[in-house]
């Protein structure tokens, strides 16, 4: 299949394929595997970190990312060009992360009740040479309510606009702004309280 004109070489010299080209390949049964490879090359790492910030443990992030890509294949016909491919991918990844956390919480608890257990996982998963403030930041994020956590991660780490976050999470822009504001306040309080 012909590549889009917007496909270009990136700074590392490898071909950077446009989202439009990837979306076209994804809808073509004969090129779907190539599309999945391109998605993993372009978005695999950011999606992995997005999931990992939600579920904390690497093994869980691996499962959720694998399921995300399988769902990308299964539900590729539902993708609409009205939205950026990245928003669609982040939406699927976010849903998979939440599904995994819901399974872990079981029937008797909500995902928000997992805060303490996720906070404990942060220190266990952190590299031995990790910066203490970065660990505290992840602990603070782990303790946030799920909505605030999603909005904070997408805005702070992924630099997503509120419009993009709206496409992924679904809430109104004003609600997202409020969630981000509260998240920042709680994180600052936590780090100030725990920093040596």
């Amino acid at each position, binding site marked *: 299949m012909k590549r889009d004109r917007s496909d270009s070489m990136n700074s590392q010299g490898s071909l950077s394929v446009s989202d439009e080209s990837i979306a076209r390949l994804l809808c073509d049964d004969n090129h779907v595997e190539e599309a999945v*490879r391109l998605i993993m090359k372009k978005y695999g*790492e950011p999606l992995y970190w997005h999931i*990992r910030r939600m579920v904390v443990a690497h093994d869980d992030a691996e499962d959720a990312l694998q399921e995300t890509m399988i769902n990308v*294949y299964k539900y590729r016909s539902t993708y609409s060009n009205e939205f950026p491919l990245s928003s669609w991918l982040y939406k699927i990844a976010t849903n998979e992360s939440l599904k995994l956390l819901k399974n872990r919480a079981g029937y008797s608890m909500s995902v928000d009740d997992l805060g303490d257990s996720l906070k404990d996982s942060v220190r266990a998963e952190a590299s031995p040479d990790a910066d203490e*403030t970065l660990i505290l930041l992840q602990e603070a994020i782990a303790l946030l309510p799920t909505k605030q956590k999603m909005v904070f991660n997408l805005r702070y780490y992924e630099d997503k606009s509120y419009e993009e976050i709206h496409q992924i999470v679904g809430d109104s822009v004003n609600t997202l702004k409020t969630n981000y504001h509260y998240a920042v306040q709680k994180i600052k309080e936590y780090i*100030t309280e725990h920093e040596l």
Partner: protein
Amino acid sequence: MKEFDLEGLSREMPYKMPEHFLDDLTERVVSKISVEQQKRHKKERRIYVLFASAASAAAVALLLIHPFKVGGPNIPDYESISQCASIDEVFQSMSTDELGVYSMMSNYYGN
């Protein structure tokens, strides 16, 4: 107490991603998708064969139900034959060509 400066903090993560993790995962995902696609193609083939068999059965059934409608307008139907008073009248209503064919067929079958 001095407020913590979140914006000045590094965006790094305190975790590490295992080496070659994404390459390995990509291969696993692609092989799973390949299996899914093969399953889908097999299912589509089964559905095609099922529909083709149903269409063939329907065509055969139609031929069995309406066997005399197939031959076209030149074959006389039962009603026009039964309305003739006798076999002689049938012969009288036949054209020279038809009589010729009848005679040839009779000789061939020995009647």
